[in-house]
């Protein structure tokens, strides 16, 4: 065990030489900052695989009929794309990377409450990812059920589904442990004087997220166990030939998986709530309203799962109850958008890269949100259910929401994490291509869905051709933008100009420590006074 004297405070966490060398200095490290980067690199790798699969699907859809793959391959591609993107990227995304890195610093702590458990969570994450990859590489056939593993097909299909289901279960376990760690960290380790209502909004959003992770994930865990046992032994609970009910699977699945949508979006909203005040140089408008709406989303989000199942067979009462609750959960999101816009009002706006991503986030998030109301209304839902409209909606929310927030967050915190600044001209070009590509890719799918093009088919009728060409072209532009963004970030980590401590003039605690932060984060634990607050501009 080392004593305080042995860790010098002027050595950054990147340069610190511990007991282990090379890669072991990373994969045996319990430093929350190194674990955050471990998550970031593993996610970036998996993300590129998911993107490649997405591009393959768009290429298949560039013309009717078989273009590059047949129906079975297409089913496998959208399944693996979904499993990777949902379970490995957007659910853990912001909490595991920026939550791990920034949460302790933003609340003035030296690490999370359970550093070893934190490292264990990453191991479990990698194990889950490897299991899913194993289901692709081995066995007879790549999983083809879609990422939802719906019964009864999930125990009838001959493909190698078990490792994928077990992988999703294991990834859920990683998510639970991260959530548990964050809740305890926020409860026990805030800096002296930092009361709940002086805590910055990103930690607040992580707090709401952590509770959802903790309370919803076990339910999908047991559901996945049950569907696996159904597949292995035939216990009967989801198998109609043995007396079970496959619709019950859908209920149990969405009881988790709808709150999981808020696990994705709440930290994204939290990151946006940090970026907007910094680049407007103004106190966040309606600080408490944003917290209240975070908690409201986390709470009401539990009671809307039925809106995934309007055509699965539910009573009329259940249908309109879920529909009304779905409309209610839109209100807190709208409150947040209102607060962000009001924060910009009369602020001294600095339209730098993170701000561009944040504003684009608000734009695509609103399109996604409004199309969500179309899907939440019973009459229109029946019309567009299981069409490309749904695909467009959740890519606007999940990829548009989480993706834009993630890139906004990484451009915002990059100088803090790596101590260097990226090339802003390239970053701006990457953002522009990405945004144009994104809108070209997904907007036509709203139209296609309204016209009746079903989702999850490798083929379509000739009248959908023109819009599909546009969409596929968009996917290339977006991928081009993505490549620019990633190359720029990678190159700058070594060669970029040295970044100052507070390049954006932010006021939260992470801007009071050197860039990159020292191993211990703070020389002295900061103390919050009576007048201090996270957004005192």
């Amino acid at each position, binding site marked *: 065990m080392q004593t305080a004297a*042995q860790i010098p405070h002027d050595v950054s966490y990147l340069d610190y030489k511990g*007991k282990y060398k090379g890669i072991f200095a990373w994969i045996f490290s319990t430093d929350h900052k190194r674990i955050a980067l471990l998550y970031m690199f593993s996610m970036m790798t998996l993300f590129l695989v998911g993107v490649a699969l997405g591009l393959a699907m768009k290429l298949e859809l560039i013309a009717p009929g078989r273009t590059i793959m047949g129906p079975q391959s297409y089913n496998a591609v959208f399944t693996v794309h979904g499993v990777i993107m949902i379970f490995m990227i957007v659910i853990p995304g912001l909490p595991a990377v920026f939550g791990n890195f920034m949460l302790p610093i933003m609340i003035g702590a*030296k690490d999370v409450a359970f550093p070893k458990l934190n490292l264990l969570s990453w191991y479990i994450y990698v194990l889950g990812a490897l299991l899913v990859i194993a289901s692709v590489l081995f066995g007879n056939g790549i999983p083809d059920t879609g990422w939802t593993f719906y019964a009864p097909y999930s125990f009838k299909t001959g493909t190698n589904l078990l490792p994928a289901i077990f992988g999703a279960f294991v990834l859920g376990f990683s998510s639970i442990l991260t959530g548990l760690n964050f809740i305890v960290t926020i409860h026990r380790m805030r800096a002296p004087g930092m009361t709940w209502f002086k805590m910055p909004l990103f930690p607040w959003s992580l707090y709401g997220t952590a509770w959802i992770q903790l309370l919803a994930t*076990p339910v999908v865990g047991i559901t996945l166990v049950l569907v696996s046992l159904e597949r292995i032994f035939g*216990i009967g609970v989801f198998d109609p030939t043995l*007396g079970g009910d496959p619709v019950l699977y859908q209920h149990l699945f969405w009881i988790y998986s709808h709150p999981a949508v808020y696990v994705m979006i709440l930290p994204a909203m939290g990151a946006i709530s940090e970026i907007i005040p910094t680049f407007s140089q103004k106190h966040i408008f309606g600080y408490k309203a944003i917290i209240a709406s975070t908690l409201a989303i986390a709470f009401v989000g539990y009671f809307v799962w039925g809106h995934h199942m309007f055509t699965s067979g539910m009573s009329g009462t259940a249908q309109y109850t879920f529909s009304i609750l779905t409309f209610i959960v839109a209100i807190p999101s709208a409150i947040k958008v209102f607060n962000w816009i009001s924060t910009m009002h009369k602020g001294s706006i600095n339209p730098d890269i993170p701000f561009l991503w944040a504003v684009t986030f608000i734009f695509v998030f609103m399109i996604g949100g409004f199309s969500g109301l179309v899907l939440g209304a019973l009459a229109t839902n029946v019309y567009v259910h299981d069409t490309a409209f749904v695909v467009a909606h959740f890519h606007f929310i999940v990829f548009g929401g989480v993706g834009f927030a993630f890139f906004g967050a990484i451009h915002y915190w990059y100088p803090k994490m790596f101590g260097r600044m990226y090339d802003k001209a390239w970053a701006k070009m990457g953002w522009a291509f990405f945004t144009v590509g994104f809108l070209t890719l997904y907007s036509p799918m709203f139209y296609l869905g309204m016209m009746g093009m079903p989702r999850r088919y490798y083929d379509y009728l000739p009248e959908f051709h023109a819009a599909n060409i546009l969409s596929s072209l968009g996917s290339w532009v977006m991928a081009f933008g993505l490549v620019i963004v990633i190359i720029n970030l990678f190159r700058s980590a070594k060669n970029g100009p040295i970044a100052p401590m507070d390049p954006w003039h932010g006021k939260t605690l992470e801007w009071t420590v050197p860039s990159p932060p020292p*191993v211990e984060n703070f020389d002295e634990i900061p103390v919050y006074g009576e007048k201090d607050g996270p957004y005192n501009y």
Partner: protein
Amino acid sequence: MENATQHSDPHYDQEASKLGMWLFIFTELLLFGGLFLVYSIYRFLNPEAFRLAGEELNLTIGAINTIILLVSSMTIAMSTSSLQKKNKGLTIFLLEVTIMLALIFLINKYFEWGVKFDHGIWPGSQHLINDMSKGEILFFGLYFVMTGLHALHIIVGMIIIIVALNKVQKGIVNENRPSLLENAGLYWHLVDLIWIFLFPLFYLIH
């Protein structure tokens, strides 16, 4: 401490570890909550079949196992308080008793399941599928899943208690740093509590 980037003041926060354990217990309750939900739905849909199938279970073994788990909960609680009273020998003895009781529970479970297998009842067995109603198939499906998952928790609990016992022996867990033992106790009470619900649901309700 074996880690590369070890923090200079690895602080010991008893409150934090207890809070973490309680949160973990929430997740366990929700895990079983999903199963209880499935059970109640199918019981509601097949009341007669569930009653018939329930009579097949051995009430005596179930009752004995309930008593065993309740006593083991008592012994582990006593071990915590004897650690506070700095009575290391008694703590170790009580933990050993707890482990023994858990083992007896598992042996009973083994014989109970064995009898079912002898009768040709296991998930997906021909006897179950050909000769029994759908409600009975569901009952036994849930019976094996829920008691099986519970038995798995007993095994995990035993491992945790063995680790705690080992650390008490080495003095790493002592009256000033009792968190690991207390958390092991909390976990064991959870395992006990789940059985307290499983027992009436499967064996008693008619």
